[in-house]
């Protein structure tokens, strides 16, 4: 049984998540609340834990329909990148972000994240 499929989904206005095992997570909507970490940190940590327990080599995160995030929400992706960097080579996996190149925040943020963790992050810009 996929641990990723068992991760509890967060409840946040204007934001939704779909998890499609074995390794696809779709984030949709906007994240604009003042402290998104209070609602979403545990969820992102759960995704990371599940990816490790499922021994996935890659997790695909589709953010093409996540049209806006505030700066505090970018921190959620930074945290996920940091957790990945802290894994040993045998347990590590790749985070593949599917982005929309027309959406500015995705273009700027993920390209910088990739430079900070080039071995952990792959960007598919459409």
């Amino acid at each position, binding site marked *: 049984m996929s641990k990723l499929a068992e991760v509890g989904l967060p409840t946040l206005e204007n934001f939704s998540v779909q998890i499609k095992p074995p390794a696809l997570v779709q984030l949709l909507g906007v994240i604009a609340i003042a402290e998104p970490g209070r609602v979403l940190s545990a969820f992102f940590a759960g995704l990371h834990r599940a990816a490790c327990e499922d021994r996935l080599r890659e997790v695909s995160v589709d953010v093409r329909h996540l049209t806006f995030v*505030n*700066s505090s929400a970018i921190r959620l992706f930074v945290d996920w*990148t940091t957790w990945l960097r802290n894994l040993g080579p045998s347990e590590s996996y790749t985070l593949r972000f599917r982005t929309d190149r027309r959406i500015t925040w995705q273009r*700027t*943020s993920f390209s*910088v994240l990739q430079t*900070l963790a080039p071995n952990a992050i792959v960007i598919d810009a459409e």
Partner: protein
Amino acid sequence: MPQAGPFEHGQNPLPLAQREARTLVRVAWENSENAEYFYGFVSGYAKAVFSFGAAERVILASQELLENALKYSLMMKEITYELSTTMTDICVVVRNATISSRIEMLRAHLARIQENPERTYTSELERSMSPSGRRAMLGLARICHEANMVLRAAVDGANLSISASCRR
């Protein structure tokens, strides 16, 4: 006449030629508790009024400036938001009262951003990855680097006004 720097003294950073500026939205909150729900309105309004690219910029600047005001405003002091345009430009201004140390920190941060928006953005993201615990100051860097807007600030006593402007 010398070029105005990013930080000025006075009530308004005046990024737009005042005579021709048209105020589209002006909102004042008597305290920070009920300002959080503004994002949905600004987002819908900007998408209805501006092109996709301009709307993205207005939404980002509005969100980040307002969030900063909510975080750093003195309790029970008014916060105002204004969105205005001319034939050629768009401007978002947020005003709030804050403490002098915040103003000094902002002065230094704005100088770094104006010098190199991309580098500041990257270094703030890096900072948020480090375990130092110091909170990253990504919002203003995003406005400059991501939205390609010009930031200006003005101080009048404890009142701080920050504007973000760009071509339409």
